[in-house]
């Protein structure tokens, strides 16, 4: 097999056994790799009804067929498991260098099974794989854990680790790699913690073999040229990072403020990508083989130079908590990386707690002993609560359950701005109808990177759609969702899709793997993956009634700003979406659809 390493590392943590298996080539053909193929393994190997923290849940760390090759942005890996936050299928995606290193060591995928009796880490140096005692690492922050393992295994070794949040089963914990890259969403870090696995070290010398080296060289050069010449991936993202979106989204009046109570703020420019570039930015950071380099490095007030916040984080801690202070936001981001927390869910959960406080559900006497305020706008609060969540201390222990369980505990689940218990990201769906449909139907819950319709509805890529209209949005949502499943499964970064189209991904896949995908068959594989994830969720008990949005976004019009007066028209969109998907009117995939897709 070209592109693929062709091997899976299966680690039974109960019996401490390590097995190397051949990758199922037939499944790889149908489900590509990465997100798709790992979902197939998870679907076949666990009962979707399993308790996410039970040893019977599995944690799959997977690369795609293009991971570790010369393909631009080909450094992605994914963590696939049953989520303890949503109880749906989770697939969290990260860049950095770990994925490429794992592939170079000769593995497409690691499947972690069971639960170790005491903390361990896994060391992979090509064919030498060991389960090692992690007693000295348990409880340590991500940077120190990474430093200690790099000291032992050398600087070339790449480290994936959880922080204290994952150890303490914080339901919004991330799996971190290369210090500050995160497989952030859905609480995958807590599943790793539940298995008593602190870290995975990878060091590889094997490389990846490709079908036709000259062809790969030519195709890769032509795609890099497209990416570099595109104004978004060649200029905007490198210069300003993803936080370039702050002003754009705010000027459209869909920048959620104070836990989605408003959707515009006159203070946005204080935390924009433009302001970051002029103030705290020290340099840019690129992941493995990435010509875009959207990553930021910033200097905190105390002099520390650390990974900077991206757009979602600038929003979740910024406008969503009404903190217009880039230093405080960057510090909160830093502690998320250290404790191993998802910055979207953590910031959004703090914002939800602030609204609970604002409305009197949380009283002063409950937080007095924490010594941190819960007032919107307090820069110390976003940093303080982040650390409390990471440690599960005080009210942070309740917040560690995520915004839905937090709000539910106070009898106010409607104040959780989440879908399927996953906190919504930085775009108010009331002013972007298609994007809201994607939130409601995304298989991992309220997520923006399962079909980024902001691209069409706001940025005009690949074409401009009327953001307030529902017309054609069901069809667009399906295409974006299916294409995203393809890009994730290949092991490439979604940001390439600002410049590349389906045909480009087909070219890259075929050149590397020697396959004969067409645009039609590759997109069909994306559709197959999407339906498989849906089936997992249905079997897990996530019924279609959860294809919804928070009541606020469906019933209350936006109160002010450029999108004033609109609500999300989900009930107009959903029936059409189910029809376009080939699902019945209740949202279950029809027999004939599954047959057509050979799921």
């Amino acid at each position, binding site marked *: 097999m070209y592109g693929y390493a062709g091997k899976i590392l299966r680690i039974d943590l109960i019996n401490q056994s390590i097995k190397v298996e051949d990758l199922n080539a037939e499944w790889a053909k149908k489900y590509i790799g990465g997100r798709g193929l790992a979902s197939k393994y998870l679907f076949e190997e666990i009962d979707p009804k399993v308790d996410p923290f039970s040893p019977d849940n599995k944690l799959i760390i997977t690369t795609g067929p293009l991971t570790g090759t010369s393909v631009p942005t080909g450094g992605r890996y994914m963590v696939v498991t049953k989520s303890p936050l949503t109880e749906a299928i989770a697939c969290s995606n990260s860049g950095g260098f770990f994925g490429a290193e794992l592939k170079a060591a000769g593995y497409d995928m690691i499947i972690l099974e069971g639960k170790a009796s005491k903390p361990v880490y896994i060391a992979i140096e090509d064919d030498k794989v060991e389960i090692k005692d992690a007693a000295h690492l348990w409880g340590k922050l991500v940077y120190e854990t990474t430093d200690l393992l790099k000291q032992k295994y050398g600087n070339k070794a790449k480290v994936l680790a959880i922080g204290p949040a994952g150890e303490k089963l914080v339901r919004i914990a991330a799996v971190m790699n290369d210090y500050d890259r995160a497989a952030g969403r859905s609480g995958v870090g807590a599943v790793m913690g539940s298995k008593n696995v602190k870290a995975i070290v990878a060091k590889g010398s094997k490389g990846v073999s490709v079908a036709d080296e000259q062809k790969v060289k030519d195709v890769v050069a032509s795609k890099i040229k497209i990416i570099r010449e*595109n*104004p*978004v*991936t060649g*200029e*905007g*993202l490198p*210069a*300003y*990072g*993803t*936080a*370039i*979106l702050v*002003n*754009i989204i705010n*000027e*459209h*009046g869909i920048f959620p403020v104070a836990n989605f109570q408003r959707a*515009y703020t006159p203070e946005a*420019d204080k935390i*924009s*990508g*433009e302001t970051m570039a002029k103030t705290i930015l020290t340099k840019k950071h690129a992941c493995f083989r990435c010509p875009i380099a*959207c990553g930021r490095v910033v200097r905190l007030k105390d002099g520390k130079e650390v990974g900077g916040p*991206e*757009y*979602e984080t600038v929003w979740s801690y910024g406008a969503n908590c009404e903190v217009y202070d880039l230093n405080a936001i960057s510090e909160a981001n830093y502690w998320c990386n250290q404790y191993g927390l998802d910055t979207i869910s953590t910031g959004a959960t703090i914002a939800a707690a602030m609204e609970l406080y604002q409305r009197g559900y949380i009283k002063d006497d409950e937080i007095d002993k924490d010594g941190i305020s819960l007032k919107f706008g307090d820069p110390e609060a976003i940093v303080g609560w982040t650390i409390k969540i990471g440690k599960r201390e005080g009210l942070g222990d309740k917040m560690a359950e995520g915004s839905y369980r937090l709000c539910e505990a106070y009898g106010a689940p409607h104040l959780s701005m989440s879908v399927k218990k996953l906190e919504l990201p930085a775009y108010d769906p009331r002013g972007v109808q298609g994007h809201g449909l994607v939130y409601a139907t995304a298989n991992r819950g309220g997520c*923006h*990177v399962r079909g*980024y319709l*902001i*691209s069409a509805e*706001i*940025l*005009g*890529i690949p074409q*401009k759609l009327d953001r307030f209209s529902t017309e054609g949005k069901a069809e667009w949502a399906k295409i974006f969702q299916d294409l995203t499943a393809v890009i994730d499964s290949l092991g490439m970064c*979604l*940001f390439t899709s*600002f410049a590349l189209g389906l045909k480009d991904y087909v070219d890259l896949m075929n050149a590397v793997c020697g396959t004969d995908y067409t645009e039609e068959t590759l997109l069909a594989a994306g559709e197959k993956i999407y339906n498989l994830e849906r089936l997992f969720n249905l079997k897990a008990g996530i019924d279609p009634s959860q294809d919804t949005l928070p009541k606020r976004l469906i019933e209350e019009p936006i109160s002010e*700003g*450029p*999108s004033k007066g609109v609500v999300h028209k989900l009930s107009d969109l959903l029936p059409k979406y189910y029809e376009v998907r080939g699902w019945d009117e209740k949202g279950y995939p029809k027999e004939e659809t599954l047959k057509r897709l050979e799921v």
Partner: protein
Amino acid sequence: MIKVKLFATLREGRANEIDFEFFPGINGRFILEKLGIPEKQVSIFLVNGRDYSLDEPISDGDVIAIFPPVGGG
């Protein structure tokens, strides 16, 4: 008065915000020309948060936001 807000690379060599005197018929094309911004550098042209074509007349008191091609997530 019309307030024009510039973002990202369009701020290079220009102020972040510029006020224009209103006159009947003033439109995006006129404003871009006055600011020396080539049309191809403009990806999003908003009037009060809504997409406008460069030929549509702008009203007194409108707020305009102009962006080059950008993306993120």
